[in-house]
């Protein structure tokens, strides 16, 4: 039950993009088309889950026993960067269609603050291993949800007559604001 709560809390109530502002760069940059936004969401979810597992292990197996907490940020970012690199090579080797779908997005994920944010939140909230995995899956699903909805709205916006100063980033931010208001409707649903 606890695990389901963590999942929904990360996916909907405390959505990474709309409540914590993590992963705004891809959220604004890659939300032009539904198909690419969805692929980006899937790639991010995948890296998030793997990163949650690996950083949890590193933090609790290496950094804490040897009193090296101060290396937390340096080691996390290194792990995430090499992980993304590794995932890219692995996907390329195993599945060509998947690589073609996700390929160009994978390098972008390194600088996605949602991944490092996830690793930091797991440490901050003292989740255990299983809880950490569920939190990672929830955060990834939430990110996919937000970026896909946003892409859907932006596809419609292409047809709209937007005033010139509002074109590009401003209208995207305003739409995101309205989306955040909509997601606020879920707050109070779960208090985690």
């Amino acid at each position, binding site marked *: 039950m606890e695990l389901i709560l963590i999942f929904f809390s990360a996916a909907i109530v405390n959505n990474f993009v709309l409540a914590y502002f993590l992963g705004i760069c891809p959220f604004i940059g890659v939300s032009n088309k539904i198909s690419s936004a969805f692929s980006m969401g899937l790639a991010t979810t995948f890296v998030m889950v793997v990163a949650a597992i690996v950083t949890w292990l590193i933090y609790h197996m290496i950094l804490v026993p040897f009193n090296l907490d*101060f290396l937390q*940020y340096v080691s996390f970012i290194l792990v995430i960067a090499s992980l993304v690199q590794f995932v890219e090579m692995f996907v390329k080797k195993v599945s060509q269609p998947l690589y073609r779908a996700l390929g160009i997005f994978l390098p972008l994920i390194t600088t996605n603050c949602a991944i490092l944010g996830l690793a930091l939140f797991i440490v901050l909230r003292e989740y255990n291993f299983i809880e950490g995995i569920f939190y990672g899956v929830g955060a990834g699903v939430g990110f996919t949800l937000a970026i896909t909805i946003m892409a859907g709205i932006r596809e419609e916006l292409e047809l709209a007559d937007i005033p*010139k100063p509002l074109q590009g980033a401003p209208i995207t*931010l305003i739409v995101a604001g309205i989306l955040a208001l909509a997601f606020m409707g879920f707050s109070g649903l779960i208090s985690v």
Partner: protein
Amino acid sequence: MKSKLGFVKEYTKGLWENNPVFKQVLGMCPTLAVTVSAINGIAMALATTFVLVFSSIIISSVRKLIPSQVRIASYILIIATFVTIVDLVMKAQFPDLSKSLGPYIPLIVVNCLILGRQEAFSSKNGVLRSALDALGMGTGFLIALFMLGGIREILGSRTLLGFQIMPDFYEPWLVMILPAGAFLTLGLMMAYFNSIAINMKKKETDKIIEQYKKSKAAKTIEAGA
């Protein structure tokens, strides 16, 4: 370019012309997340500026030693080191601020503004120029965060830097201190600055067209067209 004016320009271009937030749309995560109040915005911007300036100095001075294949990883390592310093100092000296900024201080590591400046500027320019460029970008970031935080604090909780600005009968807009308020405020501010820039550009082109019409060269162009 090597004149004194060039150095001044490296600093001032970050303030408005290439403002990291309003013009380049970089570093959005901390911009939106911490600007619930003006003081948070200032603290965040100062921390970012510190990291930006020192990593720019280090990277520009070792730029010829780093092989280009591993440059991004090396940049991130250098940046992460300075972020760790900032985080430890803030935890020791300003525990309240550190608590209210929470995980967004460590997240400076992945702030695309910092990595972007290293890739676009420090890896190609000397130490002094890179330091000035970083300082300018940091100041531009500070201006943006202070404006955003100030507006949100005044409208959302009646105060600015903790002093009451709005009268008591003013009902604070709760939405401004919620996440939605951050998106809306920044979107509207960007639109406003864009409209100023568009107007300025229009005036400039009008002026040039006017001058062209007066000169003889314009007549030949018109005839040619």
